[in-house]
């Protein structure tokens, strides 16, 4: 039995499209914005679009940070998407507030490069850096692409925490993972069958 995926709604994410895609893959979701629900959840999903500090402030105001960290450290599968992935880290060049600190690393602004506009917006191809339960299905694919929208790029401190790599002027981590905590820089909920396969793998993780 899998328990519903708890989508943490702190006011900065596209919850509608995530719910639509989980519904399509037959996974149950719940949406909540209180520490109590997080403390009981069997799976956590941290979405996020917008500025790093604004997000950490809202998470702080709602008193969610300790609950998310406790639950993640207790082994509950946790997935951060886009800004939600960056929040899992120690911090970001975009803001001053510390992140959740679940995976060591920081987000840095894409360096200016000739002809490359920031944000990195569009479909890009990824390659596997480490095997992971979320990306095992990729072995059967010639090429896997996802939809990205971001101005800050992540590099984890430890190479072993990088799951997928992508290149846009520089090489950066498109997906990260350590034990039960995962992050995706791209939007799986907007990435056709590729995103569907990834979210479906997350929904199927034992919990």
């Amino acid at each position, binding site marked *: 039995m899998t328990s519903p995926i708890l989508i943490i709604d702190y006011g900065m994410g596209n919850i509608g499209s995530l719910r639509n895609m989980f519904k399509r893959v037959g996974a149950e979701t719940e949406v909540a914005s209180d520490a109590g629900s997080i403390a009981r959840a069997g799976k956590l999903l941290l979405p996020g679009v917008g500025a790093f500090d604004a997000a950490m402030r809202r998470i702080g105001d709602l008193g969610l940070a300790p609950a998310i960290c406790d639950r993640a450290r207790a082994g509950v599968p946790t997935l951060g998407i886009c800004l939600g992935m960056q929040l899992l880290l120690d911090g970001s060049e975009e803001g001053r507030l510390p992140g959740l600190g679940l995976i060591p690393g920081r987000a840095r602004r894409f360096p200016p490069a000739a002809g490359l506009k920031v944000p990195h*917006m569009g479909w890009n191809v990824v390659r596997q850096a480490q095997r992971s339960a979320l990306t095992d299905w990729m072995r059967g694919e010639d090429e896997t692409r996802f939809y990205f929208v971001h101005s800050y790029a992540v590099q984890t401190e430890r190479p072993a925490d990088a799951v997928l790599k992508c290149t846009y002027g520089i090489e950066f981590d498109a997906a990260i993972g350590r034990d039960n905590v995962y992050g995706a820089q791209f939007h799986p909920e907007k990435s056709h069958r590729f995103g569907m396969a990834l979210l479906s793998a997350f929904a199927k993780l034992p919990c």
Partner: protein
Amino acid sequence: MLRTRVIPALLIDRGALVKTRNFAGKHYVGDPCNTLRIFNELEVDELVVLDISATPQKREPDWELMRDIASECFMPLAYGGGLRTFEQAQRVFGIGFEKVVLNSHAHDRPELLREIAEVYGSQAVVASIDVRRRRFGGEQVVSQSARRRHQIDPVAWARQVEAFGAGEILLTSVDREGTWTGFDLDLVRRVSDAVGIPVIAHGGAGGVHDIVAAVVQGHASSVALGSMVVFQKQGCGVLVNFPERRELETALAGTKATADA
């Protein structure tokens, strides 16, 4: 490498999918949901949905139709048509679209672009600019399905919407729209070169060579397709289609947007 986004731009008129030519002569294409489902199966990069009768009829967007679209389409979605307020934009995002497209009402109150961008990020705000050539030279920005004229040139207006917080520009040539005669490359290039945000070229695509030209000669970041993806060919019947991914990739290989590898 980043792929050049090739985006079907679909027009909704009173609940039906239509295609126009020079913003006139609505040709019935089909049921929007069925058509969008096909584009989802074709795994298109992104979709732009424009309700062209919302502003003329002074009505709200068709929320129910948008919900149906968002539950069927798992790619980035943009919606435009009749958006006047922050609350409406909020509702669009809540349904599962990630971009709002503003045109007519951005002329009345450009601050709306910033209000939305401040909360949802500028990548979520697309300014749509419609341009028509004047009969005796020059060109002008128009809105409200080309019924309203504005005394500003496209480059100046593009710079303004960027300053107001738009993260992307959908640039449509009224003269080329629905004609299959290629993009107005001169216009696309002048606007693309004048702003730092991505420009989507729209209006006139008739084949893959036009898409390449918009990127190589027009310096567009991405390309929107209308007639090409809903008709079999010029003057022929409805056929929902999309260029083969391999054909597009081969044609676009080495162009500016895909040069990084």
